[in-house]
């Protein structure tokens, strides 16, 4: 399909089709814009704000802004990457992200993005949430202490037609993923390992049991290539 037109991403032309967002077009063209809550198979959510770019001088989310001809989009500038590091630090202190002991390490989008952006430490005081871990399901473990509230599990489970995960509550203390059962336990839902939602979590919340270390540390997705390369080769986590 012929591209309608182009816009400029950090000075380089990116082709796009009408209806594509800036992030979609950049992704299709193999260009990396940092993101956490965006996934090419799902509707943009616009909540993590990592993809905030400067469009003709104004800040906006690349995942929700439609591409239009001739836009000048700043992406990997020192100013924007600094802002992104702060947002990452906020996510790191909001949850409990102890990478060395997390089985998602090496294939975690949050960790990989922090490496990509050169985040050297958490900066803010840790909040140390104490959210219950749900190990009730035979095949899947849930550790919400690592949740970044991206809502991808909600969208994926809606696609599964099950609505196992729904974003609810308010604010930092209240907002969370609500499980679709009266007990709040995953085992009491119709969730299954073959659901889209079982494989969508970009961080270490929804973990399949018994496979956590089949690929050893050091040989995992983002060990092989940084997210800016891995993410743009059509190989989503």
């Amino acid at each position, binding site marked *: 399909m012929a591209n309608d037109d182009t816009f400029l991403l950090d000075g380089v032309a990116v082709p796009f089709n009408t209806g594509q967002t800036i992030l979609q077009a950049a992704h299709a063209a193999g260009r990396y814009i940092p993101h956490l809550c965006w996934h090419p198979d799902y509707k*943009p959510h*616009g*909540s*993590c*704000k*990592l993809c*905030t770019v400067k469009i003709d001088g104004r*800040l906006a989310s690349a995942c*929700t802004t439609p591409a239009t001809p001739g836009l000048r989009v700043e992406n990997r500038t020192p100013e924007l990457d600094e*802002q992104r590091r*702060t*947002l990452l630090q*906020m*996510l790191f*202190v*909001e949850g409990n992200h102890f990478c060395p002991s997390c089985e998602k390490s090496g294939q975690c989008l949050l960790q990989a993005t922090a490496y990509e952006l050169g985040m050297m430490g958490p900066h*803010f*005081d840790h*909040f140390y949430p104490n959210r219950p871990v749900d190990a009730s399901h035979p095949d899947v473990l849930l550790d919400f202490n690592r949740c*970044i*509230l991206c809502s991808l599990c909600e969208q994926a489970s809606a696609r599964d037609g099950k*609505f*196992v*995960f*729904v*974003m*609810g*509550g*308010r*604010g*930092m203390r*209240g*907002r*969370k993923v*609500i*499980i*679709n*059962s*009266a*007990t709040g336990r995953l085992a009491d839902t119709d969730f299954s390992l073959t659901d889209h939602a079982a494989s969508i979590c970009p961080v270490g919340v929804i973990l399949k049991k018994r496979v956590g270390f089949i690929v050893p540390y050091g040989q995992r997705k983002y060990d092989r290539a940084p997210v800016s390369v891995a993410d743009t080769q059509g190989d989503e986590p």
Partner: protein
Amino acid sequence: MPQNWIMLAGMDQLEAIDWVLSRHRHDGTRLMQILRETQEALGWLAPETITRIAQGVGWPRARVEATAAFYSFFHLRPRGEYCLLWSDNIIDRMAGSRALMQRLCEALWLEPGRLSEDGLVFVHTTSDIGMGDQGPALLVNYRAATRMTAERVDAMAELIRNRVPLADWPQEWFQVEDNLRRAGPLLGEAFTPGAALAAALSRGPDAQLAEIAASNLRGRGGAGFPTARKWQACRDAPLATDQTRIVVCNADEGEPGTFKDRVLLNSHADLVFEGMTIAALTVGARQGFLYLRGEYRYLLDTLEAVLQRRRDQGLLGRGILGTPGFDFDIEIHLGAGAYVCGEESALIESLEGKPGRPRLRPPFPVTHGYLGQPTVVNNVETFACAARIAEKGAAWFAATGTPQSTGSKLVSVSGDVARPGVYEFPCGITVAEVLDAAGVRNCVQGVQVSGPSGTTLTGEELGRRLCFEDVPSAGALMVFDCTRDMFEAAHNFAHFFAHESCGFCTPCRVGTQVIARLMDKIAAGRGSQYDLQELSRLHQLLQGTAHCGLGHIAGNPVFATLTKFRPAYERRLKSLEFEPAFDLDAELSQARQMTGRDDAGAHLAET
């Protein structure tokens, strides 16, 4: 008590839920009202209650729970027979609310935020309940009680201990005064229901829209968007089959320090409903909603009665004033304690039974609003103005005010003044003139205009004018005299935003918490210059990257006071370059408690 309460009395729990569900036609978009009425009947929303409601409306259970968990006034855990929530705005605090809450807790032997052991009573704080002119105030089972004193608190504790039903409590405690201190063109003259509507009908929708445009009426919620442009956009938006246009009155008056809509709804509801009906005529809407904040629950029955009277008078319903095809009715939707629902797209989400999360825009509500239909959302006062414009004409309206801010403005005044209340002044009035009318008792240190999301003025800036050309506002002044601590005001506002953030986007969800924690650190005397820089940096991040207006401005009051009242911060700082956020000695308190020691050797020397 409303009729449904009596109906529900003889029923068991499931029957009560099913009765509420059928009353609302098992319609999931009415979930907010279903949850509220169920909770009013059963006391709280137990897991099996949520399950039953989900089955009843045909929604996934988790979606129903998601909505219930979003709003402060819905309880997924028991809240006791008495739930007492103290308004926690800085103005209530200045009037002594914190000490009174403490007194109540001590009298009842309980901690704030924790249900009493016998499950009888719960005492906590809540965001401003709109009684800043007659505080300290609280909600008793969601009914506003005003002008609390130590004597009243003691008597209240006694009534609770004796389990006296609320209906038998002294009714004067629940008296809410209008405190309308000055009326002008909008409220100064009596209004005959139907007069404005008849004038609009004889003019016709096109001419009525032109009249609003000529009046240059701008939104009274603070943003100042031209009303005629909004109405025009809604009117021009295409309709799909089975769609209608919608008129919504935003009475989610949650901005701390603002309470003028309370007065309009209590004593001038006809003016407001008539304005909505005129909007319906102009844009071609058949359905209307009044989104009433949960804190104003006490107004519900009065407002329902006004609506019923207007139906009986032919001012609502089918063929309004005998005009074939002019069908419009208004329904009241009660909120449940969420400031963010004042944002119009969050308000619409709430109307649809969902958590009040601001939508991605565009599309805007004027083209895709309530259930995807073109929707006009205006402030209570805007509709009242529209009614007067229909009645008396654009020229009459524009004769008051300034060129860019025509008409008059209702101003809520609270804090350090002799006569707190609501004042109607021409737009463009100076802050000083309003303060003169309200009776300033002491030298003015600062004025917070339009609540925490508004503008902070110093005592030197009282010549500033309340209008869109100078200080745009929703019309509220919180006055702080020179004995007050402006840091405390900012500290209170920082916690307000942290509590009210919807939690959708990273910068606002976490950033408002980080700001509140930094303010706590400074308040505890452990702040450094570095923390002040951090506050400014966070303000800029929120302003640039947050998802909606709440997040954009959440750092405002801190940044403004930091700029204008810097000594209030600096006198709390340690002189060191860096201070840890925690207090080493305080960290040892648990160890001291466990060992039963409190001697000098069990303490670290103060650094």
